[in-house]
């Protein structure tokens, strides 16, 4: 016998949603979710995907000039991973009804953002190492808690991404250790790259908590597990001993262990710089967007040809049947 229940009211659906989150269970595709959750999640995942895709550019810049075949193979694998991460994430956003063409369009028209860090230039090969160590290190800090995001497909994509980020961070650190055991000039290149990337890496965690209006809602929905400042502090605490082991100086005179807090204190961050970079005024914003737009436009004929080929094959199959 089939029992036909009346369709649940919106209030009931909402209670069910809240209950699932409260029990620390995952929301899955096709579950009822509040419209604001859906919108926020699509935007969060899309911006994360955009960051991975744009993130291919700064390092891709060095593939043809890698100093050895070993470094070139590693760098190729790493940049290919970034593309993969972007694709995991776009498909996760699609499970919420995000449209892939629409997301791409929003990226190249500047209506959706990507991580501020990729608007800085890569001036020497040491930057490749520092990006792996600091930028991917910061990304890992951000992303490990997101493996417990309340949205299932996003959490699962993050698990895969975090595993691969670990390779990214370690290859970067190893690259820097190799350079630090080289010539004086190579050590200077590493220190210079650290000087340029340290502060932008701290900015990757976003504005300070008292200027982050969406944090409370995101934490209630469990799509964000720690505040920006908590994650930033965790990153600083992790990184200081790594810098000591490497033999570089982090460019912050105020950086010091605070025994009372059990954390490192660090100097004031230039939030105006972050605002400027996010709103399009960073050193490479225009270049990154232009490159992405051109790649999309240049690839149009390939996408069309593949679709035409698929249609023809399908027609042939139908005729033969």
């Amino acid at each position, binding site marked *: 016998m*089939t*029992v036909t*229940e009346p369709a*649940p009211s919106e209030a009931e659906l909402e209670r*069910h949603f809240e209950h699932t989150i409260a029990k620390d269970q995952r929301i*899955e*595709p*096709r*579950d*009822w979710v509040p419209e604001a959750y859906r919108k926020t999640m699509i935007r969060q995942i899309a911006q994360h995907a955009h960051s991975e895709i744009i993130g291919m550019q700064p390092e891709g810049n060095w593939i043809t000039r890698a100093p050895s075949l070993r470094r070139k193979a590693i760098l190729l*694998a790493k940049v*290919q*991973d970034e593309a*993969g991460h972007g*694709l*995991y994430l776009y*498909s*996760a956003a*699609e*499970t919420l009804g995000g*449209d*892939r*063409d629409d997301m*791409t369009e929003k990226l190249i028209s500047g209506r959706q953002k990507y991580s501020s860090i990729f608007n800085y230039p890569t001036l020497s090969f040491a930057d490749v190492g520092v990006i792996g160590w600091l930028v991917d290190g910061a990304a890992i800090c951000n992303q490990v808690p997101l493996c417990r995001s309340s949205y299932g*497909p996003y959490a*699962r*994509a993050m698990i895969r991404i975090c595993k*691969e980020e670990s390779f990214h961070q370690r290859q970067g650190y190893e690259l820097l250790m190799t350079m630090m055991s080289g010539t004086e000039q190579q050590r200077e290149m590493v220190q210079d790259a650290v000087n340029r990337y340290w502060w932008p890496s701290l900015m990757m965690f976003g504005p300070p908590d008292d200027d982050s209006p969406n944090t409370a809602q995101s934490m209630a929905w469990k799509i964000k597990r720690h505040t920006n400042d908590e994650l930033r502090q965790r990153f600083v605490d992790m990184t200081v001993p790594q810098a000591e082991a490497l033999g570089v100086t982090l460019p912050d005179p105020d950086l010091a262990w605070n025994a009372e807090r059990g954390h490192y204190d660090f100097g004031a961050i230039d939030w105006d710089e972050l605002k400027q970079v996010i709103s399009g005024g960073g050193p490479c914003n225009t270049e990154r967007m232009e490159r992405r737009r051109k790649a999309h436009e240049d690839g149009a004929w390939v*996408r069309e040809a*593949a*679709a035409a*080929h*698929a249609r023809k*094959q*399908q027609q042939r199959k139908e005729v033969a049947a």
Partner: protein
Amino acid sequence: MTGEWPLYEVFVRGKRGLNHVHVGSLRAADDDMALHNARDLYTRRNEGVSIWVVKAADIAASSPDEKDPFFAPSGDKVYRHPTFYDIPENVPHM
């Protein structure tokens, strides 16, 4: 546009002896491209020995709502579980 490319769901067998498991999805123009893209996207580190791809539109799925009566028939049949039966402790191998 990729809008013309259907969405495929990807299933990977991690190694012999295991089931294929859903790992995610991708867009591709046809089945061949879907398989190649799935290999490049989901098995860059020997994660699989076999891949299935299937158009998402071809999957029939139950409703996701847990209150759906679809699963009700198994809800009240505790006697289908071995723990339902009390067996004295001195009975071996059971």
